[in-house]
């Protein structure tokens, strides 16, 4: 798979404040690369630097097939975080204008626009003025605009924000199918649960610097330790005496045991003491969502995991 975009050592500061520093990743053909992080982590700043809307203070951004460092704008689809549409124009007019700006053939754009409008449940809205659309419909039109010209690289900044669950699924399916057809996709989000199931690789950013990166399975293996949730009335001492327990979140009826990295679940389960009160038991990995919350709230769960790993 060819690398469509390479970001190396990107840094940007406003006045004296460093917004991002030493950000490096790449996006390959046909993969979904997720740029994750809480609000204000520097995701949009990174993307705006890639899009040439801001100029980085340090680092390099390289696109495939680009000569003398120019951004191949016509090959990129971009859905910014701050987005909207002209109000008093027809849906089809604006879609065709945005396609025209990408030098995409108009009759083909028109045909694709009609297909996509239908796909997104907006059939017959092509002649409707933008101001008559609901917010969700507007988001769909913006999304269509970003993919109408068949971009090789698609950059989506918080594509799911403000969408209802049905539309979220619609977007997810479309993004997946675009990637399957070879589009390189860079996706930023603060909604980890949405991204977890679709990203091939991820880059987690906090306060402008990298926290975790790698393929989803790598990251999970590396950072997402097992946790065991037990419903039942057990004393703290009993739970504490269990092997491989690093941390306990105990409430009256249930307890969450965070297990160490080297735990082997089957063996660990077999060795549970008989006097343990188990009404219900589940064992799974810490989700990305939990890791994310951890980072955003500056708990040190991940740090522990990281230190242990080191």
């Amino acid at each position, binding site marked *: 798979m060819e690398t469509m975009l390479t970001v190396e050592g990107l840094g940007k500061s406003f006045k004296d404040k460093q917004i991002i520093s030493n950000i490096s990743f790449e996006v390959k053909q046909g993969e979904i690369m997720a740029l994750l992080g809480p609000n204000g982590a520097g995701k949009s700043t990174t993307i705006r630097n890639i899009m040439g*809307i801001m100029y980085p203070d340090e680092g390099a951004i390289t696109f495939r097939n680009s000569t003398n460092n120019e951004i191949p704008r016509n090959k990129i689809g971009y859905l*910014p975080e*701050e987005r*909207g549409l002209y109000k008093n124009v027809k849906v089809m*007019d604006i879609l065709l204008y945005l396609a*025209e*700006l990408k030098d995409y053939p108009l009759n083909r754009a028109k045909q694709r626009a009609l297909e996509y409008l239908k796909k997104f449940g907006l059939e017959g809205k092509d002649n409707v003025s933008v101001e008559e659309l609901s917010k969700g419909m507007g988001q769909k039109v913006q999304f269509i605009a970003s993919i109408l010209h068949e971009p090789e690289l698609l950059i989506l900044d918080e594509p799911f924000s403000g969408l209802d669950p049905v539309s979220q699924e619609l977007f997810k399916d479309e993004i997946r199918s675009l990637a399957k057809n070879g589009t390189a996709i860079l996706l930023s989000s603060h909604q980890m649960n949405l991204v977890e199931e679709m990203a091939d690789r991820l880059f987690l950013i906090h306060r402008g610097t990298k926290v975790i990166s790698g393929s989803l399975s790598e990251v999970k293996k590396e950072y997402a330790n097992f946790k065991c949730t037990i419903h039942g009335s057990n004393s703290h001492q009993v739970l504490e005496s269990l092997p491989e327990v690093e941390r306990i979140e105990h409430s009256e009826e249930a307890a969450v045991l965070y297990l160490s990295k080297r735990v082997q679940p089957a063996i660990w389960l077999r060795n549970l003491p008989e006097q343990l009160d188990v009404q219900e038991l589940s064992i799974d990995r810490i989700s990305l969502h939990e890791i994310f919350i951890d980072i955003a709230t500056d708990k040190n769960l991940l740090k522990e995991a990281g230190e242990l790993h080191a």
Partner: protein
Amino acid sequence: MSCMHNTKKVAKWEIKRNLKSKSFIIGLFLTPLIFLAFLLLPELFSSDDEPATTTVYVNDQLGVYEQLEAAAANTEWNMELTNSTPQEAEEALEEGTDAAYIFIGEQSVESGTVPVYTNDETSDAFMDEVQQLGGPLQMVQIEQLGLTAEEAGTVAQGIVFEDASNEPEQAGLFSEAMLERVVPGAFAAVVMLSIVFTGMAIFQSASQEKKDKIAEIILSSLTPAELMQGKIIGYFVLGLIQVVVYVLIALPVLIWRIDVPIIEYLFVPELLVLLLIAILGYLLYAAIFVGIGATMADISTAGNFQGMVMMLPFSPFLFIGPVFSDPSGIWAQIGSYIPFTAPGVLIMRLSLLEEWPWMEIVIATAILAISVWVFMKLAGKIFKIGILMYGKNATPGEIWKWVRT
């Protein structure tokens, strides 16, 4: 090259978008109609306009009626002989028709005055026109003095005070020679006002782009400079469309109403200079509009600074008084050298002056052209940052910082 390509696409879009908007189309036709209405309404209401057919009753005791009729040939009168006495005439006039009574007898020739009775309805011009009847009566006077026909002829010729200077007629605004200069100037003024007023929408277009948050989507396909230039060119073309509509609606009416060979006066070499000044003026104001528009989140929240800058295109109006009273005076010259007032002031001056001050024109135009270049550069810097700043208006301090980078 690719830059021009994108600029053209933006320009085309702005043109298409406006031509599809109802409010633009209404404005397009309404402005020339309002202009015509202001020009023609006063004329419609004034009674001078109607051809006044005054019925003139003549009580002729001298038998000069035929000569009188000949002397009054170019009036709109309806002349009739009458035997009424002055008393009867006054009673008849009380009925209130457009009429007049003239009493000509021996006494008139001796005293040199002819009693004329009129009423309110009598045309205003009548008392001027009636003087034409003096000729035949003078002839009677001269005959009675017993002069030879030749002597009589000389005396009857009267004495005319003729203007011997080379100035053709007194230079009122609508004298023939004046119109010859005013027509190209007025046309240039219409062109400039049309493109500048249409261009004011650039300001709205730029700030709306921020408000609708589409700027970043657009800028993922082209550079801020291309977007800005596209807007400036797009609204220039829209302004020209306005000029064409103006000409199509107003010109036929003006040619019909004003008895002047407008077309002949219009297409003179001087028009090119005037149009160049008008276009430079547009570009200067357009740069200001697009730059300031990009600093504002919403038109309704325009600060004092932005409001004041928006008023710059109106600054030439400050010079109307001084320029009209002395088109070569110090104020007129100052106005020509200040870039913001130069377009308006130059067009006014060149419409009024018979001899164009070419040296001044060249210097003033050069200053204007350089200002256009400088302001385009500044607007570019402001636009680039401002267009992506959402949610708040830029302060003059911030704008100054962007300009300095």
